[in-house]
C-alpha cells in the first residue's frame, strides 16, 4: 500500500473581522498520500487539525471554479494541483491576489462579478424567436468554444497586472465573456455596445502581458478575446465614419 509523504504547509491566515490581528502564516506538518491534490490536503488539515481554516470548494474536479488560489507562487485551482507537482516538501498557500481578503483563503469576489455583469453577459436577440433552434453552423459554434469553456474561477483576475494598479479595469474574464457573445452568430447586440469598452477601463487597458493565459486552468486565452474585441471596435468605428452605421437611439 502507499504511504503518506511528509509535507509542511504554510497557509496564509487573516480575518477581516479581527483587524487587530495581523495577517500571518500558520504552519501545518501533515502526511499526504501520493497523488492527492492541494484541495484534499486543505480538507485534511481543516478536518483533522484546524477546524477554523477557511477556503472555498465545491466540485473537486476542476469544473466549478471555486478554489483558485496561489500555491508556491503559482495561481491554479487547488483541486487540480497535485501536492507532489509543486516540487519540494514545503508548500506556501495564499489567497488570490487583486481582491480583498475576507478570511484566510477566501476573497471577496464582488468586483469580479460586478465587471462580469457590466459587459451584459447574455445573448441579446432582437429578432422574434423561431419555432425551433436558431440555426448555427458547426464552424460558428467552434468559434466561441474556448470562451464558452471559461469557468469564472477568477484565476486570470488574480494574475492580471493591470488590475493590480487599476481596480476599475474590466479584467480578462469579463472581456473574454463579452467576446463569447460578440462572436456568437446568434447575438444581435447593437454594434454601438462596443463603445462601452472603448477606453482604458475596457479593451485598451490590457498590457498584453498574457498573464491571464498563463493562469487559466481551462486553456482559455482571454487576451485573444481582448484583441478580437479591439479589432471589432476598430471595424465598427471605421464603418461608422464611413457612414455605414447610424447612431443607436
Amino acid at each position: 500500500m502507499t504511504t503518506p509523504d511528509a509535507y509542511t504547509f504554510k497557509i496564509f491566515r487573516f480575518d477581516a473581522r479581527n483587524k487587530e490581528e495581523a495577517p500571518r502564516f500558520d504552519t501545518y506538518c501533515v502526511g499526504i498520500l501520493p497523488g492527492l491534490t492541494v484541495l484534499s490536503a486543505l480538507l485534511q488539515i481543516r478536518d483533522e487539525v484546524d477546524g477554523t481554516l477557511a477556503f472555498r470548494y465545491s466540485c473537486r474536479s476542476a469544473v466549478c471554479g471555486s478554489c483558485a488560489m496561489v500555491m508556491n507562487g503559482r495561481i491554479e485551482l487547488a483541486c487540480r494541483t497535485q501536492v507532489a507537482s509543486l516540487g519540494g516538501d514545503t508548500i506556501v498557500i495564499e489567497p488570490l491576489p487583486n481582491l480583498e481578503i475576507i478570511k484566510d483563503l477566501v476573497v471577496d469576489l464582488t468586483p469580479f462579478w460586478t465587471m462580469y455583469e457590466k459587459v451584459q453577459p447574455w445573448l441579446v436577440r432582437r429578432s422574434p424567436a423561431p419555432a425551433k433552434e436558431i440555426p448555427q453552423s458547426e464552424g460558428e459554434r467552434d468559434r466561441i468554444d474556448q470562451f464558452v469553456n471559461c469557468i469564472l474561477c477568477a484565476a486570470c483576475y488574480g494574475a492580471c497586472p493591470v488590475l493590480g494598479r487599476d481596480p476599475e479595469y474590466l479584467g480578462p474574464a469579463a472581456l473574454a465573456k463579452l467576446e463569447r457573445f460578440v462572436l456568437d452568430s446568434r447575438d444581435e447586440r447593437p454594434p454601438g455596445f462596443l463603445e462601452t469598452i472603448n477606453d482604458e477601463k475596457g479593451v485598451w487597458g490590457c498590457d498584453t502581458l498574457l498573464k491571464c493565459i498563463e493562469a487559466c486552468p481551462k486553456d482559455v486565452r482571454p487576451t485573444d478575446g481582448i484583441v478580437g474585441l479591439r479589432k471589432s471596435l476598430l471595424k465598427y468605428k471605421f464603418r461608422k465614419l464611413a457612414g455605414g452605421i447610424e447612431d443607436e437611439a
Partner: protein
Amino acid sequence: MLHHDIIIVGGGLAGLRAAVGLCEHYNVGLFTKVHPIRSHSIAAQGGINAALGNNPDGHDDTWQKHAFDTVKGSDYLADQTAVELLCQEAIKVVYEMEHWGCPFSRFPDGTIAQRPFGGAGFPRTCFSTDLSGHVLLNTLYEVAVSKKITIYQEWQVVALAAGEGRCHGIVALDFKKGEIVPVAAPVTLFATGGYGRVFQYSTNALINTGSGIGMAYQAGVPVKDMEFVQFHPTALIGTNILITEAARGEGGWLTNSQGERFMERYAPHTMELAPRDIVSRCIQSEMDEGRGLEHPLGRYINLDLRHLGAEKIKKRLPGIRSISKDFIGVDPIEAPIPIMPCQHYSMGGIDTNIRCETVLPGFYAAGECACVSVHGANRLGGNSLLDVIVFGKLAVDPISEYLQENGKKSDEGLLTDLVKKWEKKIAKLAGGGEKPALLAARLGKTMSDNVWIFRQKEELSRAVSDILVLKEQYSRVGVMSTARHLNYELVNAIELECMLEVAHTIALGALLRQESRGAHYRRDFPQRSDAQWLKHSLMRRDENGNPSVSYSEVAITNYHPMERTY
C-alpha cells in the same frame, strides 16, 4: 427579518429556472450556499434528452418514445403522467435554452446535435461537447443576471419554518456576515440538489450533502423512494470524478482484465449502452468475480476510448480527457481510463406531485432534491438535466396560483423562535467532543459498505444500526470555534444532522423493500415483485424523530409493466 413573496433555495438549474419564471411578477429571493455558478449542475457532462429528431438516425423519434424509454428505464416505478409531461416539455425547454443562448454542439445542417445514450431507443441526447451542465448553468445564470434576480450568495439555510399546516419561510446563516437571519415568505421552493456525500464513494460535488431533503423531512414533509440510489457505472478510481456516459454513447468500450467486452454476456443488444443500473451491476460483478484490474487506488475496469481516435475524443469528449489527464494521469487517446461504479444520483427525494407541490401548503420542491417521480427506480442518462429545468419551469404556475389565492402573511413569531432555537443550538456546538468530519466519514463508510449496488438484509440492518449510533454520537458533536462567519466546520456540523436523517431513510427504505427493482438490487430478493412492491415508499418523521413508513400508488397510463430486457 427579510421578506419576500417567494424564497428559492438553491442556485443550480432548477432554482434558477424557477427564479427566472417568477421574478417578473413577484419579489423573489434566491438563497444559495455557494455562488450559483459553483452549483453541482455545472458538473453534468453528457447532455439533455429531448425528442427533437435532429439526428439522421433519429428522425422518427417522438416524445412518446422518449416517455416509453423513461418508464422502462425506471423499471415501471415512475409515474407515467409525470413522465409524459416531462417528455413533452423536453422539446420546449431545449429550444428555450437555445434561444437564451445555450451553445449546444451542432450537426452540419445547423441543428442541435444529438447523441445516443443508455437505455434510449433513439439518439436524443442534446449536448455541448461533454460540458453540457456547464453551458446550461451558465446560460440560465446569464438570464438570471439579465433579469436582476436578487441572489443571496453563500447563505446556508438551516431550517424550514413550518407551523399551523403551512410554510412560513426559512432561517438561514449569512455565511460572510455570520448572522442567523429569519426570512419570511408565503412560498418557499427547495431546489437543493442531491445527497451524494452521505456515501463515501460518490461522483457528487463536496457540497452535495442532501441537507435540503433533510430539512424538509425534519419539518414533517415526507420523502419518497429514498432507497433508489443511482450508481454511475463509470467514475474515475481514487477521486470518483464522473466520466460521462457519453464516452460510451460515442462508442467507448468496457473491458475486463482479460480484455473482454463483457457487456456482451449481460446485455447483448445494447452492450455498453444498457441503462446505468444494469451496467453498474455488471461492472461490480466483474470486479467481484476476479476479472477486475488492480491499482494502488483500488480495483477497476477499463473504459477504452482509443478506437474512437484522437480527433473524436478532442471534439466530443474534451472535458473527460482533461479530467483523466489531471486526476489519474491517463490520456484516453493513449490508454484506457480506469473506472469503478459510484453513487451518482438521488432518484428519491422530497415527495412532490407534477405541480412541484408537497403536502405542506406553501412549500415546493424541484430538481434532484424532489421526487415527482419521473425516474422511478432508475434514471436514464440525459434525463436529469431535463428534469431540473422542466420542473423548475413547471413550478412557476402553481406558485403563482397559490400566491393569488392565499394571504401573504407569515407567522413572524414562529420564525423568531426558530432563530432563537438555532442560536442556542450553535452555542451548544462549542468545544463538543465528536468531530463532525469524523462522524461524516463513518456515515459515508457504512453507507458505501452496506447500502451499495448489491444489497442484502444483514448489511442493510447493520447500516441502520450504525446510523442510530451515529445519531446518538451527533448529540455530542462539536467544532473548534463557534464564530459564525466563514466557519466551514460549523456549517458541516449543521448539515451533518440532515445527512444522518437522509441516510437513515435510504438505509431503512432499502431494508424494507423486499424485491429488486431498478437500482435497488437485493441479493436475497432478486426478482421484481409488482404484486407487492409496485408502489412508492414514503417516510415521514414522527414525533419521536423516527421514520414512519407508508406507501402510495404508481400512476400508470399507457405503459403496462413488462419484463425489462436490453
